[in-house]
């Protein structure tokens, strides 16, 4: 099964595929599209049209399903998630049933990793007693993760994030409702779990 993931950038590109593998319980083939690289020049603005364009891209490329994730930081009103859901509804109302799983990470996707301290320690090969901050005590999960990554072991941060993501167990994510991970996992299962290989 090949899935087009649309999210923010290289960090999300490294993080999301292993998380989706785990959620679905099987490996997926991935194509990645960054929101920032999608340039719509016409009258359409916002995440909704970008989602619909991505659906077109997915169909055009023969991809089975789409995963779209936005961050909640810099979007206190939650408009991005609302835009995505509205666009998906419009797609469904138009009689098209392309599988689209949506996620809103609060504040951003890195928190889905930090919320599983065991995965962080395993992925980064840290001692079992290494301190990993509780996500309730930080507003900057990305910075907290970066502090734990040793540059000599992971010259590329994306590799470190990928390694952590591969270890994440959704059951260990104590704040999954607050971070949006639980809702994202539900949506992935609902939209993608029953698709053919």
């Amino acid at each position, binding site marked *: 099964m090949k899935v087009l993931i649309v999210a923010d950038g290289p960090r999300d590109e490294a993080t999301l595929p292993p998380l989706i593998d785990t959620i679905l319980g099987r490996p997926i083939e991935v194509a990645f599209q960054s929101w920032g690289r999608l*340039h719509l*020049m016409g009258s359409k603005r916002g995440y909704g049209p970008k989602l619909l364009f991505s659906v*077109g891209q997915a169909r*055009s490329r023969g991809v089975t399903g789409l995963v779209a994730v936005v961050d909640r930081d810099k979007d206190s009103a939650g408009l991005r998630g609302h835009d995505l859901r509205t666009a998906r509804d419009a797609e469904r109302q138009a009689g098209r049933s392309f599988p689209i799983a949506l996620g809103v990470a609060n504040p951003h996707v890195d928190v889905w990793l930090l919320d599983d301290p065991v995965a962080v320690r395993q992925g980064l090969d840290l001692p079992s007693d290494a301190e990993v901050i509780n996500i309730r005590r930080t507003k900057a999960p990305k910075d907290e993760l970066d502090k734990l990554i040793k540059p000599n072991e992971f010259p590329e941060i994306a590799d470190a994030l990928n390694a952590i993501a591969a270890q994440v167990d959704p059951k260990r994510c104590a704040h999954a409702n607050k971070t949006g991970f639980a809702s994202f996992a539900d949506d992935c299962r609902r939209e993608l779990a029953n698709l053919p290989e």
Partner: protein
Amino acid sequence: MLTQLSITGFRCFRQLDVELKPLTVLIGANDTGKSVFLDAIEILSPGEYDKLNPLDHFRGDLAQNIKTLGTLSDGQNLRLESRTSEGGDRQVGLFTGTLLISDIQRFQLPGIGVETECEGFGAKETNGLKLEANGSRVAALIDHLLRNDLTCYLNLLNELRRLVPGFEDLKIETPSANSRRIDFVIEGGFRIPAHKTSAGVRLLLFFLALVHHPNPPKIILLEEPETGIHPKRLGDVMNLLRGITQGKFSKAPAQVILTTHSPYLLDYVKPEEDQVLVFQRADDGSRTAKPVDWNRLKEDFDGFMLGEIWFNEEEAGLVKQEAS
């Protein structure tokens, strides 16, 4: 108008068969054959085909004959061949066809704008009124309109007023007996030589002059008309070019075939009227051109503009998908 073109063995094209419309837009990455395609049309013009040389054969292989076959809208065929005889002699010729040397003209406008001072058209030139490939001699053409077709001249002036904020009037100066220079009168009656105005304004002036040309070339080949033009102005440029294909202000419509790298310009293509050819490099190194698959785009990207689909999906996303 050329309605079809078939090219065999010409430079980077091993074999190409395409349909052309009154307005045809060529897109593709650099070095995918767009300009060579214009060359292939240009050599159908008398006086051009004898410039063919051995390197114009596909991969320089003289054993591979060049054959270019163009079909005109009146059903006539233009056939150009360059072939090597058994004795090793190369024969080049336009074997059939009725095009005149002035029927095909190619323009590549400089981004710094077109010249607005030039030699005027003499009495003997009035049939041709040929603009140069770099767009110069606009001053001579507008001077000709002023003297011979006032209605057309006033149309041009009104269009210029509409397109250029602050522009009020245009004056043709004669710095010497043979030369003509365009001056602009801008707000407040301030008069400046046109070459002191912005490059983009002078490029618009060229397109306006071409639209109002009393006897334009039948086939206009245009390289990257977006050069030097603000993206939001490209709609105006496309409207002017469409005006040429409709003969809006001239005696006869002309065909326009242009190359572009601008997705903004592509947004102004009309699927139902225009042709868009997508140039790509094939696995064997030859170049191909395929029309945009409007059905595919309608199915997958309904409601999105062609330029943004091109920018995000690149060339392969615009043409008919190869059966896997």
